[in-house]
């Protein structure tokens, strides 16, 4: 009854010029982090949308970098939680349609406040320990959130570690899951492309935001430099799959490249390459934005989890 009513409403709202939607895609960004971080356009004077052309196969071998993490509370020292986490990062290189792992690294560690860790030390053996730094009053939920951020950071560092090793011996194009701006080295890599599925921070507001989020499939936005204090990159939005009837964020990814590589033609070219990477579809709820190569790295890392 409810579903049927919703469908009726979708139809009538669409007739009135609204965009029908049926649900927010998974992992489109943390709602609590939703914000607008104004960006600076580097292509034209106003935000525009451009058709990028037909998909094109990526020339030559292509590598994919991703990381995974999981964590679990294992004890409380008083009210202070102790969290065990496992993070892994890897790179799979595609040659002749076949993907194989060329780099990977894993780390199992425990996180908690210093006092809690010292109490637990006799039971932890040689397991690496990471301290949650916080001067505020102790609150278990706050500590869990801090631990999550810590695990994120450790995973990010592990990704950079495998990236460094990879670049030491490979010069193939590399598609990175997420933003390049987390590392100056990545952000300056001429043969790295960041593909971000998350849209917690949007670069525009007002009419520009609408234009940005209403991007048709196979189109990209004008290039821009994201705001914030991280390493500089040039970015643009690319719609991989039609969003009509689904959600504004469906199939929408943000692409990042090193600023010195970025040009409108290069952005079109990379966009066409990425459109070709839509297939095969990833067996995942995020299939609309999750490139198969990234998915493959993720699966490999998860399968190897201890």
């Amino acid at each position, binding site marked *: 009854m409810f579903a049927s009513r919703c469908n009726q409403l979708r139809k009538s709202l669409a007739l009135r010029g609204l965009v029908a939607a049926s649900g927010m895609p998974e992992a489109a960004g943390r709602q609590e982090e939703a914000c607008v971080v104004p960006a600076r356009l580097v292509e034209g004077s106003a935000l525009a949308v451009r058709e990028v052309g037909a998909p094109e196969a990526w020339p030559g071998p292509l590598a994919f970098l991703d990381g995974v993490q999981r964590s679990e509370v294992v004890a409380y020292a008083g009210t202070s939680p102790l969290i065990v986490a496992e993070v892994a990062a890897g790179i799979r290189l595609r040659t002749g349609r076949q993907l194989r792992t060329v780099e990977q690294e894993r780390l199992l560690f425990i996180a908690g406040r210093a006092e809690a860790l010292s109490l637990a030390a006799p039971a932890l053996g040689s397991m690496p320990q990471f301290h949650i730094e916080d001067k505020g009053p102790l609150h278990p939920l706050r500590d869990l959130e801090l631990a999550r951020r810590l695990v994120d950071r450790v995973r990010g560092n592990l990704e950079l570690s495998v990236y460094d090793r990879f670049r030491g011996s490979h010069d193939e194009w590399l598609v990175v899951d997420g933003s390049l701006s987390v590392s100056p080295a990545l952000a300056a890599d001429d043969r790295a492309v960041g593909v971000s599925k998350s849209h917690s921070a949007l670069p525009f507001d007002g009419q520009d935001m609408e234009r940005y989020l209403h991007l048709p499939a196979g189109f990209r936005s004008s290039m821009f430099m994201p705001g914030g204090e991280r390493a500089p990159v040039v970015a643009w939005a690319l719609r991989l799959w039609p969003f009509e009837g689904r959600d504004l964020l469906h199939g929408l990814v943000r692409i990042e490249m090193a600023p010195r590589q970025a040009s409108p033609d290069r952005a079109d070219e990379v966009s066409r390459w990425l459109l070709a990477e*839509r297939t095969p*579809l990833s*067996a995942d709820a995020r299939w609309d934005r999750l490139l*198969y190569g990234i998915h493959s790295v993720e699966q490999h890392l998860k399968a190897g989890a201890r």
Partner: protein
Amino acid sequence: MTRERSAGPVGRVVATEQKPSTPHQFFFWAAVDAPVGIGAIVRVETEERTVHAVVTDGAAYADLQNAIHDVMATDGDPAALPAPSARTEIRLYLASVLRHEPPEPLQPVPLAPVWLASDVDVKVALRMDGYCDGERATGVPVGVYAAGGLEAPVLLDCDFLLGPEAAHLNISGVSGLATKTSAAEFLLASIFQKFPAHKGSIAAVCFNVKGPDLCFLDQPAELQDEDRRLYDRLGLIPEPFRSTHYYAPFKADGVNLNTLRTHESLTGSTEPLVWGLREILDFAEVVMNRDDVDAKADAFIDFLGERVVGRTFHDELLRHEPFEVQTFADLEEFFRAIFDFLESMGRGGEVWRTHHIATIRKVRNRLGNISTRAKGLVTDDGAANDLPWGAFEDRGLYVLDVAGIDPLAQDLVFARVVSKLREHLERRDLGVEHVVVFVDELNKYAPSDGPETYVRKMLLDLSERGRYLGLVLFSAQQFRSQVLRRVVGNAGTSLFGRMDSDELATPGYSTLSAATRSKLASLPKGELMLRHPHFTQPVFVRFPRPAVLTGREGVTRFPPTPDLPFADAVARQLKSLDRSIGVEAVRELLHDRREDDVRRALGATRRTRPDDVLAYFRTLLGRRVPSEAPAERRHAVRPVAMPEDPYL
């Protein structure tokens, strides 16, 4: 047995709750390009346990969750370019366990790496290590197991192929593609070369029941290098049978042989198969249908056998002179005398010596029927030319070409030969200790349904008790399901060539996996699936083509000659005894001679094999040959019409 596998496992055993590893089967995955296929033998090894298994099924799937995702990815265009990344794909194989080491305690197959079998593995997996080594080895090569670049010889255990532990071989497969005849020929050659001395002597008797199939087993084939390599791998010499003996009945004219082996260069090596009344009477039951077989007919046939045929029988009521029944003609004369006597008695003249006239007529009709339908096999002059009972040669191959004769006569030949083999093997006076009898078209002789015939009963008896005597049945047919189950069930070893898919759908094949059945339905020539008592699972083997001419090649290289005129055919027969005899001399000799006289003289010459063949033959023509039928031609015996009798 030295070839070693290249290092490295090809897969890993995997087990889930839905697909657990058990003591009898397990799953393993292998790389997409791993040389693993249905029928491959693999080894799972841990420190505690080694398991050998054969791959019986396989599956492949990718990480595609739903087929619709592929449609979506290509926008519904089947011709869309392939995706830049190949999906992660799994090749999951099901393997059935052949052997655990140690065998106890019997446990599930461990989750460990999987290796392709090496030569040694194949030997161990198939338990050939128990009978292929040592002084008293009993292995006989049947082919090579071939997978992933490995070719390992597979040997059968003589004790289980030729008795006494188990025996008999059955071959199934569709005509023309299953290479049933080739398989039998190759295996016989292998047995002749490798049958161990400590097991004694062996011979084979083959019935050629269709075309020229077995007509050229003494002629070498031109083998390909690949075949020679296989022979070498199996330790066999590619050569035709060294000691072959061909037998074929005459045609109705009594001088031309009823065989496709009539090319001039082959006729000398083909003996006539000729039987007289005595030989036939012992197997009169063969020609009786089920309705005929009753105590009265049996009693009268016994009476004929014990009191009349081959003896001097005197009955004043019938005739003043004693009867000396040696031939069908004599027998007909004897019957005629009985009927004349009974007719002369008028009313009440229906019984002679407790035998009712209807019984006598029935027996006369059936026996007379043989002499008509098996003319050429059955001689009127009573002199037989038979297999060398008591003088069979070790490694001798005796081929009886009965392809051209009436089915009733084929049954008769088959029944008598097998019975005589059994009789002599029981008395241990055949000349050899083991005999393989090869019969093609077994479904014709031992059908799963249809009337109970003498031949069917005899085959059943052979399959159930023959192994104790050393009498072994090698049989072949298209459809195993159409053969009496007890006959094929008693075959310890079975070979399956390419099979018909309808046949594979029958219950007899339900124990095979779908993949194995699918492989059977498309087996290439020269490849067979093999069951043997030592092998806990069927295995696939490849064998080289036999080193003998096939029937088709044989008739091309040795085209049969048309039937010769009477005198020329006689000349050819004599020439086979003495090559110096000329046709013209024989023609001149036979001028104005009666054909019956000539046939008798020819038979006697053949039996005697004198030093001066032509002189002896001439002498015989000049006088009456002993124990002959009456000179005048007798009336043909008209069979009693019995519409329900399938033999009429």
